[in-house]
């Protein structure tokens, strides 16, 4: 199934090649060949515990998040950093046998990074739970949350995924 999805991503990548010349974007320069994407899977819960020290790079984002969502603690479950070529997909396994896949599409004319993101559900169906295209500035973070850390355990906390991207010079 995963192989099929990667094939789909490659197909989407090829499709994007038809569309991109029409859009206001510029091709990555010779010194901007790779995108660094860091994906963090976080368990947010109402149990006391505060911030996991490993979440320091995105602590400010989580504090702003906490202003609206009122979670008491944030614990890092998984972290992975990818140095990707443009239009090269990356994948990370999340708790509950779910997958997150990201594909940096292009560097837009305004300096933003355009990213395609897909969240797939548990084995064996791997149903698509979310897919999105977004543009974000270098160093920006996208948060995806709301699912349970353990789909079968209501008390396992809420899964929060932080996707931070930067362009390597």
């Amino acid at each position, binding site marked *: 199934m995963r192989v099929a999805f990667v094939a789909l991503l490659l197909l989407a990548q090829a499709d994007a090649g038809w569309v991109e010349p029409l859009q206001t974007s510029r091709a990555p320069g010779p010194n901007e060949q790779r995108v660094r994407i860091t994906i963090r899977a976080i368990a947010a819960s109402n149990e006391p515990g505060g911030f996991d020290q490993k979440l320091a790079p995105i602590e*400010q*984002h989580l504090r*702003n*998040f906490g*202003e*609206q969502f009122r979670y008491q603690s944030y614990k890092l479950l998984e972290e992975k950093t990818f140095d990707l070529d443009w239009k090269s997909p990356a994948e990370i396994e999340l708790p509950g046998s779910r997958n997150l896949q990201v594909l940096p599409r292009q560097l837009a004319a*305004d*300096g*933003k990074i*355009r990213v395609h993101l897909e*969240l797939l*559900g548990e084995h064996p169906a791997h*149903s*698509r*739970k*979310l*897919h*999105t*295209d*977004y*543009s*974000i*500035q270098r160093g*920006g*973070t*996208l*948060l*995806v*949350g*709301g*699912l*349970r850390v353990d*789909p079968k355990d209501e008390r396992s906390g809420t899964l929060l995924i932080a996707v931070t991207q930067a362009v390597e010079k």
Partner: protein
Amino acid sequence: MKRCPDAVPLLGPLLDGALPPDDSEWALEHLRECAGCRERQALIAAQGAALREKMLARGAAADFGGFADRVLLRAGKEEKLRGLEHLRVYGSEMWGAHKRALLAAGGLAAAACLGLAVFFLPPRAAGPEELLYADASIPQIEEVEFGSHDGAVLHLRDQTPVIWLSEDRQ
């Protein structure tokens, strides 16, 4: 018997021939039956005759010789308007004579002034919030599909985008 209080106000106009036919007929019928009202009508008629006679006598005694000269002499003795008083009189007369036209002209002038102000005033500088929305650094969710979930997209205070999913619809 018709009521006297209703008939008395009609007695004078009846004498003047100023009543409509129905009222006149009604009043005459009442007078035929009511001696009191006949006396009242006679009194009214006598008073009218006496007044007419008096007025005619006064008119006959009045001297209108040189009337126009006396009016002009009196007008010449009136004090001239001082200062801006003549403007007040002029304005009052003009306002009375052309009130509608002046109001319409005033409204058109006010609308024209407003239009000129809108046209010539420089555009207002964008406030901080507007600048924020125009900031290219704000992330944008260009497309999102939630599959079998309900979901929402929101932005935190620092413009960090958050995609929030609910658990599966059952």
